[in-house]
């Protein structure tokens, strides 16, 4: 019994692939005269934002990249410092991989201008092009957060700092499918994210 329990735990630890989140549908098409049914997964749609260097960043810049997305604002007094601290661990683990990115979206684009984002990145010791702090049209950011990354954000004058948002880190694969969501304020879940990124990198279609 005990051995069975132990080994079942072991099996869970060494998973070889991650689940795929979001809606899916079966599409039947005709290939070489034969009808083939394929599963089409929900993917992150087109977007266009600006990063801390003033460069525009679109979905195309994330083609063929595994990336972690989150939502924050630079003056956030509540969970953001914790999230930044934990995301720095992820950044330091994978910053040498050129097929890995972090995309932190500001939910307060009015305040978080390009120079403000640059200063924030500098103060976190983030340079180069692994970790992008982006801002864009507020509706665009809020829509993609809720519809595609499945993270709730909203403006609320009664909340500390003026916004409520969930501190999830969302893992996206090279085909822009959501493969995991982790509580960015919990170091244990962030360790799991790091382990899952390694698992994902080893999947055949992520190489």
């Amino acid at each position, binding site marked *: 019994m005990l051995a069975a329990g132990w080994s079942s735990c072991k099996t869970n630890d060494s998973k070889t692939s991650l689940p795929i989140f979001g809606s899916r549908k079966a599409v039947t098409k005709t290939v070489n005269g034969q009808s083939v049914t394929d599963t089409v997964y929900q993917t992150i749609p087109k977007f266009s934002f600006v990063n801390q260097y003033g460069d525009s960043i679109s979905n195309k810049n994330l083609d063929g990249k595994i990336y972690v997305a989150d939502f924050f604002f630079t*003056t956030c*007094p*509540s*969970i953001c*410092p*914790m999230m*930044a*601290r934990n995301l*720095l661990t992820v950044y330091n683990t994978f910053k040498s991989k050129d097929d890995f990115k972090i995309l932190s979206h500001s939910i307060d684009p009015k305040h978080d201008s390009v120079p403000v984002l640059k200063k*924030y990145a*500098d*103060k*976190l*010791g983030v340079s180069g092009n692994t970790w992008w702090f982006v801002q864009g049209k507020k509706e665009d950011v809020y829509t993609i957060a809720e519809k595609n990354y499945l993270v709730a954000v909203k403006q609320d004058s009664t909340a*500390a*700092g003026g916004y409520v948002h969930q501190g999830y880190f969302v893992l996206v694969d090279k085909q822009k499918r959501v493969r995991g969501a982790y509580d960015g*304020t919990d170091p244990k879940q962030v360790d799991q994210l790091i382990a899952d990124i390694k698992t994902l990198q080893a999947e055949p279609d992520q190489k």
Partner: protein
Amino acid sequence: MMAIRYPKSIVAALGLSIVIALFFSCENNNSLEFKRYYSEGAAIYQTHCLNCHAADGSGLLALIPALNDSTFLKNNKASLACAIRYGLKRPIKINGKAYDENMPAANLAPMEIAQVITYMNNSFGNQLGMVTMDEVETDLKSCK
């Protein structure tokens, strides 16, 4: 009835130990209050400070200062309560580095402020003793 006669040395030792016991019970009262402040302060720290300043008081790089600059804490002892109660909007220098982000106000009662300062002043390598509620109330009267 037989009177028991104790040797003088035993009487002296007994007397001395009573004096020592009294001394330490007095010590205990102080250290008990310190411990109470410290453990309450630890809980307040977790709720109000930890997100930004981290569990080990290390802060966050150039964004949020660490809380281990004993010299700063000692030199600014009288303004710590004001900074916690009303926030901080001016640049400060911690461990020789400049920090210019605003610190938000924490709506805490004088007792809670005294407890959390006592916790901070005796954690992260600091050994600066206790700050009482009375001291905090006095300090809060002269906030700029």
